[in-house]
């Protein structure tokens, strides 16, 4: 058993080092933040903790995209939608936790509903005052949407560019819908002004550090899960579908079921990323549904190197870090840089940064 596990880990050096780093920071960053005094050089500010926590949720999202794009060739331009739906489920829970501490002091209704003169909570908000229910919804809502959408799309063999475009249309339609006040999700402003989660104040360093650690650990677990799926027999079939869909179908595999299953798992991972993102950032609004976000996250994966899982994680963290850094020093330059990244990476680095590293290693040996 131990030997099997050893073998299993040996095959994936990049992934192992990433898991090591994740484990390390999930312990060290909270410690450096909470235990080490502020005067010390080694102290990590809460701002940084939240920032890195945010990157990790993006990394989880990128992992979800890599799972279907890198291994199954499904380029979804609508994964931001699953991310945002998970975020909204979490946001609704946090909204209900505000209670009567809102501006209008209504114990039942969130502020924006009072503002819109709504007299009672819409039916789809019920249950969200319970944490377990909200967490269930984080999984069920994106999963269900992915299931319905995927079932229709894969069954009628919508592939390639067409699939990309209709996933983009999906997230666009959802964005328009969530912008409407009548939907009951806060319209333009979204959900914000959160106070606490599970009774702990969202402003406190402890909660922030815990959320960070949770993000790191869930990312690590999601990575292990993805790797397990990829290495399983199902994973082999999925890769076969990516490389030759028709042939796989001809040897009697039900291609659409494999695709659907992977698509749903990926959507759930994206939803979980959204749920971790919202309490750390403190807001969720319809802008998260924008097609731009979804397409941007595809480029994170491309930059990191698709079909490697850890490459996607690295790409997400790297791009978002440079985004923060770039917008700090040269706000207008970032868009140029991002645009150039899209072009350069797709033309010159089809295997991403991981591809460069592997090539170097291959050259050395």
């Amino acid at each position, binding site marked *: 058993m131990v030997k099997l596990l050893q073998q299993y880990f040996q095959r994936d050096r990049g992934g192992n080092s990433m898991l090591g780093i994740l484990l390390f920071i999930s312990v060290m960053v909270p410690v450096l933040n909470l235990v080490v005094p502020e005067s010390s050089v080694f102290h990590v500010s809460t701002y940084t903790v939240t920032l890195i926590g945010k990157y990790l949720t993006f990394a989880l999202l990128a992992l979800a995209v890599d799972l279907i794009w890198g291994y199954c060739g499904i*380029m979804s331009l609508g994964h931001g939608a699953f991310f945002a739906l998970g975020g909204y489920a979490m946001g609704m829970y946090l909204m209900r936790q505000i209670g009567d501490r809102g501006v209008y002091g209504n114990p039942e209704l969130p502020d924006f509903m009072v503002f819109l003169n709504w007299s009672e909570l819409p039916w789809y908000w019920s249950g969200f005052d319970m944490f377990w229910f909200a967490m269930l919804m984080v999984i069920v809502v994106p999963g269900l949407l992915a299931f319905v*959408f995927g079932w*229709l*799309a894969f*069954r*009628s*063999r*919508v592939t*390639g*560019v*067409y699939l*990309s*475009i*209709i996933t*983009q*249309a*999906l997230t*666009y*339609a959802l964005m*328009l*819908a969530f*912008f*409407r006040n009548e939907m009951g999700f806060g319209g333009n402003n979204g959900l914000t002004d959160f106070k606490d989660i599970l009774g702990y104040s969202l402003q406190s360093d402890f909660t922030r550090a815990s959320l960070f650690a949770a993000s790191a650990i869930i990312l690590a677990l999601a990575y292990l899960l993805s790797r397990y799926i990829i290495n399983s027999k199902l994973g082999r079939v999925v890769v076969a579908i990516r490389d030759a869909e028709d042939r796989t179908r001809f040897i009697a595999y039900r291609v659409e079921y494999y695709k659907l299953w992977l698509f749903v798992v990926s959507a759930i991972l994206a939803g979980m990323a959204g749920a971790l993102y919202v309490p750390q950032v403190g807001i969720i609004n319809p802008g998260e549904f924008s*097609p*731009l976000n979804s*397409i941007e996250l*595809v*480029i994170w994966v*491309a930059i990191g190197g698709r079909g490697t899982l850890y490459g996607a994680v690295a790409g997400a963290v790297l791009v978002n870090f440079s985004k923060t850094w770039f917008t700090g020093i040269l706000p*207008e330059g970032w*868009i*140029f840089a*991002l*645009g*150039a*990244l*899209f*072009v350069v*990476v*797709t*033309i010159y680095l*089809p295997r991403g940064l991981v591809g460069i590293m592997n090539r170097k290693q291959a050259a050395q040996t």
Partner: protein
Amino acid sequence: MASGLILLQGACAKQEPKMNQSSAANQISSGILYASRALLLLLTGLIVAWIFTSTALADEVGFEQAVQQLTTRKFRDKEKAVKQLADIQDKRTLPVLQALLDARLYYRKSDKRVVIVVPIDGQYQLSDPLNGEQLGTAAKRQLKKIGINNKLRKLLKAKLASLSLESPDVEVRLAAVEQMLGHLDEAQADYITRLAEQEQDEDVRDAMGSALALHQLEHGSDEQRLQAISLLSGNLSQVVNNHLQALLEKNEQGEFLETNTTLRKAASRALDLISSRLQINSIIETTFFGLSLGSVLLLAAIGLAITFGVMGVINMAHGELIMLGAYTTYLVQSAMPNYTDLSLIVAVPAAFIVSGLFGIMIERFVIRHLYGRPLETLLATFGVSLILQQLVRTVISAQNVAVSNPSWMSGSWQINAALSLTYNRLFIFIFAMVVFVALLLILKKTALGLQVRAVSQNRPMAQAMGIRSGWVDAMTFGLGSGVAGIAGVALSQLTNVGPNMGQAYIIDSFMVVVFGGVGNLWGTFVGALSLGAANKFIEPWSGAVLAKIIVLVFIIMFIQKYPRGLFPQKGRSAEN
């Protein structure tokens, strides 16, 4: 006025000799005739002028007095003054009465001189109503407003209307009649009856007829009222509708206020006709708006239909090429500020060239490296779109820019009282059709079109036949991009021009192309117009945003059922 008459007659006289030039014998006699006639004209002119000046002199005093009379505090006296002013045929009356109605007529507290004011920066700019002389500015407390009550307001409106009824401008007359619709008094009715007999313009005469009929309906005998109803049936004016509706009203006991059954029946028939006509109108209007939206979609999508449909290239920067076209319009307009009407016509080829060149550049530097990898093309061109947006933001401005409508595109075509179609939408619809047909001809009838189709069907074979496929790719892409630029020119007339405008169209355009069927221009045509119309027909009962969502969801469902669109390509090239 008198001198105007003389000029007019003089002009007529001057033309006379030309007709008689042919015969030399006639010349002398006609010369004498001409001289005597000129003398006669001069005489009559003088007499007319004298009559006018003398009455004008009398009126001048009356006008001044009446204006001064307005400063009285008694409304009854003001009323008299207004009536007197309206009776004097003077072109200065209209501005005075209008100013009084708009609460812009004041008098100076110091010398009780009546002034028309225009508020500027908290001060009032004064002008003399008698001779139009500018009297400088004054503070508000130095002035006293000439107040009016509701009765006076009503009177003023009616008097202003009757003054404008005799205006030489057809539009002014029409507006005046329409304003008076429904509240004519006996005197006005007689007045309009007289005017209607002399009225040259058919529209004005019809409007006058309606106004008179409405008056008959109120005050005439049952016979006349019945006639009036039959005249008014089918009239789409809101006022007429209200008056007819009033005939069918019931009192609290549920009895009809109008006792004459025949009248009631006639009225309800007339109303039925009106409402069915209104319904037809609103259907026409919705169809028009739908087709207009469809034509916009067609313009936006047709370039994409070429690059995506014919070449199989996903160009996410297509929206930005539209945006560049719109900005070209803006730049052309700024370059020739005095020729707004012309600038739009110049902008069409300019935008085609600008966007086309950008398109060729994108094809040469980016897409060429990615043929056969559509998903990668999608990502790379998306990067290009980000760069182009930021380029415009940096070079021009992050804010929207103002593109003005040329005069021939503003205004609307008033078909009847309830239906008008704006010219800009009408023109853009026609424009879209022209562009579509032109593109169709290019692809079907030119050498380039033949080569494009050959390359898209079988690249190696086309190359073997001596077609430079790389060159054809660049040209095709340039053509599609250029058309996007032209679409930008049209869109600049309908929506805001800003760096982000392209993004609003990219998803819609892809939807249209995919819905219509890739590689088929007619599919794009049918797809764009039907989606536009569907959107506008759903809008009234769902709201604009929901309509859009419904259409999007519909397309998503449709593509799942028919992945190759409305008009799928058939044959071997369809399978990949």
